[in-house]
């Protein structure tokens, strides 16, 4: 991978067309695999893309979607001989945009801009990476785990889901991630923060990488702060542009509002207000 000062791979300065190769149902989620012919081969885990369907983007519920939607890439496969890369996205249908994208079929076109934002940074020598994903937040955790494994690092991966249907996504991981569910229908019945606490109390020499719903991230942040463990949190926010143009996606940080799309989506726990 390119060793950037900050883990940010630059994006071509225009929206481009990718071809949908596969759409698969993974439990409660949709997995979309699209071929990006011209984009960079080394998006950084934690970076994201703005997506829209090539056709019929609009005309959905209440005449939406209108703007593109942000999605972390969940997996990247580099194709031989500059044929580009296959990007995987893991989607949860929560509204007109995700619904429309879930309706895409192989061969159809996907509008794509990216990779965008700053991804996860490597842990310092003395710390092991500890990956935590909640719900659809497993997406960036998956490609981060892929990349660490490619470098021979076997990180502990702790995943939390509502129930077994959502937990199906755990099967995408290379290793054997630790799974918790709210209802105990798969893995342990617990919040993912419980195994995380145990892990960190066992050995605090870790850097925590987390993505998931706000309450989970808040808990992870508090836990890490108390134990003095550095945390890198991948945030979400409503976005219009994804590249810093609209100032719409702000989150409160210790030095004022920051744009999740250009200053994040990955933030250090202690940077957040």
């Amino acid at each position, binding site marked *: 991978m390119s060793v950037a000062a900050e883990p940010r791979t630059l994006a071509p300065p225009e929206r481009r067309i990718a071809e949908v190769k596969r759409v698969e149902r993974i439990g409660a989620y949709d997995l979309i695999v699209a071929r990006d012919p011209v984009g960079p081969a080394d998006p950084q885990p934690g970076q994201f893309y703005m997506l829209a369907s090539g056709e019929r983007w609009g005309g959905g519920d209440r005449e*939406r979607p209108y*703007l593109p939607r942000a999605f972390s890439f969940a997996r990247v496969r580099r194709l031989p001989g500059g044929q580009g890369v296959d990007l995987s996205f893991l989607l949860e249908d929560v509204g007109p945009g995700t619904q429309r994208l879930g309706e895409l079929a192989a061969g159809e076109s996907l509008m794509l801009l990216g990779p965008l934002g700053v991804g996860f940074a490597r842990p310092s020598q003395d710390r092991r990476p500890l990956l935590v994903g909640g719900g659809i937040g497993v997406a960036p955790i998956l490609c981060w785990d892929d990349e660490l494994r490619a470098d021979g690092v076997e990180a502990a991966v702790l995943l939390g889901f509502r129930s077994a249907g959502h937990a199906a996504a755990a099967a995408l991981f290379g290793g054997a991630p630790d799974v918790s569910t709210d209802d105990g229908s798969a893995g342990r019945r617990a919040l993912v923060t419980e195994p995380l606490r145990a892990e960190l109390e066992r050995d605090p020499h870790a850097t925590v990488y987390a993505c998931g719903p706000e309450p989970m991230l808040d808990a992870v942040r508090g836990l890490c702060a108390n134990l003095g463990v550095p945390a890198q949190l991948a945030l979400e926010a409503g976005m219009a542009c994804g590249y810093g*143009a609209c*100032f719409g996606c702000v989150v409160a940080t210790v030095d004022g509002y920051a744009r999740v799309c250009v200053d994040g989506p990955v933030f250090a726990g202690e940077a957040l207000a």
Partner: protein
Amino acid sequence: MSEIDLCGVGLRGPILNGSGTFDAIAARRAFGDLLLDRFPFDCFVSKTITLQPREGNPPPRLWETASGLVNSIGLPNKGVRRFLELDLPLLAELPVPLCVSVMGFSHEELARLVEEIEALDEISLIELNLSCPNVETGTLVGADPEETAAALTAARASTDKPLIAKLSPSATDPAAVAAAAELAGADAISLINTLKGMPLHPTTREPWLGGRTGGLSGPAVRVVALEQVASVAARVDVPVIGMGGISCGRDAADLLAAGASAVAVGTENFRDPAAGRRIAAELAAFEQKVPAK
């Protein structure tokens, strides 16, 4: 594309960005220097700058509506001093002329703002945002001929740079406001800014936006922009910069046909950072039909 003259400033084409809809510095962080080679606009307009720094409105700041966007950003900016110190050097590297958008909450403030930038050669044009619907006085000034004239007078006294007056679409008679601005020394008029709107939270039915109300933009306002641009262009002699709902070359051609001398792309930039370039190409196909003003 044929070179055009906007208030004595030569542009390689008629396409600007709407203030606050493209951050060239952030875009360069995301896209690198390729952005400069493929810069989407013929003139870059900064986000509106104020005398004091502003944090902007609390989130959420965005609402997607039918064929449009409602925003309540609230003019976050570094304040003019730090803008000139930190941002201007980077904006000076852009391959196109620079227009700085400013808003003053009083005539004194406006005058001081304009003085701050008057001397700087990197800045070719100044746009007075008289119309931001997220800051109360904004609406009032740009909607009222007298207020607008007074603001122009204050700014005019402190600069020889071309002054663009950006009106408020809340004006009952935009042409009257534009005429007042022209009389008070505006070198150009730009419109439309966003229409005041207030989306509600899907479940709580409280205002969704942190700033309670916001501004509507995008295709939903297209025909409103056409009407206001046409009525203003019919009234004033200075060039008009038309914007509002442009999403393709045909929309740009419509605004030019309605009397605009140049156009600005706003919300469409959010769908594609290269929208300006695409629209310029599409517009070229229409150009012969467009009356030069």
